[in-house]
């Protein structure tokens, strides 16, 4: 599903590579934690998958997209098959919960009758039925993140990328969000989650890829956050 082959990324403003000869493969339906200290290259890793950046060296494959080589015109297709969730939720403040989710479908030209059908379904999946008409500021942080997950998942992506999705949430709420991501993972969606949250990584016992200074320093099939930490 996701394959990086000897990928390096050097930003123009820095001499040190953000990613340094990284080769990783992630299968369909896997749940992968991407861990490492700030500046270790996690965000660059995720941005490469989305084609927000192109690698300086190496190749990136997502599904059947050759991400580094593809033409700009095909980038929207790639992004339509990837869902994204962030630490800061990134909801539209003046749109309701349902409108926020519908927005993701409207802008890729989905027909209205599909949207009307699909949005309530996904809101139910994330446990927000009954809150469709609320505005984001009327919701708790956990609920806002659920909206963001609903929006990321509504188009049934092959891959869900989560960049520190629990970074702004308390431990209990974080657990709820993880349960939700697990549920999405069980539908066959590959989930790649960058995180600093020891507790979550240790309790989930999923695959852990650790980056340090742009290199993969650990890749455990059922890992914990830090050995000897």
């Amino acid at each position, binding site marked *: 599903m996701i394959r990086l082959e000897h990928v390096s990324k050097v930003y123009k403003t820095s001499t040190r590579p953000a990613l340094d000869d990284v080769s990783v493969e992630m299968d369909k339906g896997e749940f992968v934690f991407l861990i490492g200290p700030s500046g270790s290259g996690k965000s660059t890793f995720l941005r490469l998958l989305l084609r927000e950046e192109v690698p300086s060296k190496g190749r990136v494959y997502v599904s059947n997209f050759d991400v580094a080589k593809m033409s700009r015109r095909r980038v*929207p*297709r790639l992004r339509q098959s990837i869902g994204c969730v962030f630490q800061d939720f990134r909801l539209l403040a003046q749109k309701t919960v349902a409108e926020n989710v519908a927005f*993701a479908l409207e802008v890729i030209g989905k027909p209205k009758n599909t949207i009307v059908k699909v949005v309530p379904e996904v809101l139910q999946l994330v446990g927000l039925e009954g809150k469709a008409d609320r505005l984001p500021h009327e919701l708790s942080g956990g609920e806002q993140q659920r909206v963001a997950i609903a929006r990321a998942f509504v188009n049934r992506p092959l891959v869900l990328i989560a960049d520190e999705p629990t970074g702004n949430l308390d431990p209990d709420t974080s657990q709820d969000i993880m349960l939700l991501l697990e549920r999405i993972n069980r539908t066959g969606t590959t989930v790649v989650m960058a995180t600093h949250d020891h507790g979550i990584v240790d309790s989930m016992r999923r695959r852990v890829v650790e980056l340090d200074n742009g290199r993969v320093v650990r890749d455990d099939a059922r890992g914990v956050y830090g050995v000897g930490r």
Partner: protein
Amino acid sequence: MRTSFVFSEVVTGLRRNVTMTIAMILTTAISLGLLGGGLLVVRMVDKMQANYQGKLEVAVLLTNDVSANDQDCSSQPCSGLRTSLQTTSGVETVVFENREKGFERFKRIFEAQPELVKLARPEAIPATFRVKLEDPERADVIVREFSGKAGVKSVDDQGKFLDRLFNVLNGVRDGALFLALLQALAALLLISNTIQVSAYTRRTEVGIMRLVGATRWYTQLPFLIEAVVAGIIGAVVSVVGLILFKAFILDRVLGDLFSSGILPTLGQLDVLIIAPILFGVSVLISALTGYVTLRLYVRL
């Protein structure tokens, strides 16, 4: 492509920057109004040239001596002048007008000012050859050849007077077009600026759109349409402005010149004829500016 979605984005965008939008519309309108004014003057000059082309004459005025003594141009130097005028190449017709006829013509022209007619004496009016040329542009040949000949007082080329009038009108046209150009530059920068502000205020939306895989068209079209809609509204304002300007200012100030036929009348039809040009220019410029701005300054 969901048109209703794009349309609602456009409306939101225009509403959100309402002051910028109004500034953009007004600058565009003024620029187009000046362009329209310039085009109207061009039409006026064209009409005038067509009007006068067939009527232009060179007047060869005869001396007081000839005017007083030779009523029917039967003796020298008058008859000789007539023959040589008639044989000059490029001359179409030569009509002799003696002092009496000239005075009648004078009375006819100044019918409206009887006190002027009362003051005038036939003795002040010279006998005249009215020479019509196949090509009025070549009047200087007659002027050169006949000025200073015996019996000739002076040679008047009506084209010369007209040239001065045309010069004034062309000056007005050039001035209007120059101002239009400056104003268009201001409109251009404003359009570009408005789009940048618009893109900035909607950066969250646009960011999400890109992330969920909206195509370039989907993210950029609302901004482009915003610019074009403002351009179209600007064009409407400028055309309405021109119609009102013509009806309430131009017709009043130049009404006498229009009715006497010195200046050809500009109808509202003329304004309507240039309206599509203004619309076209406006749409083209706003779309182009929008496109270039999105390409160069806004990372969508």
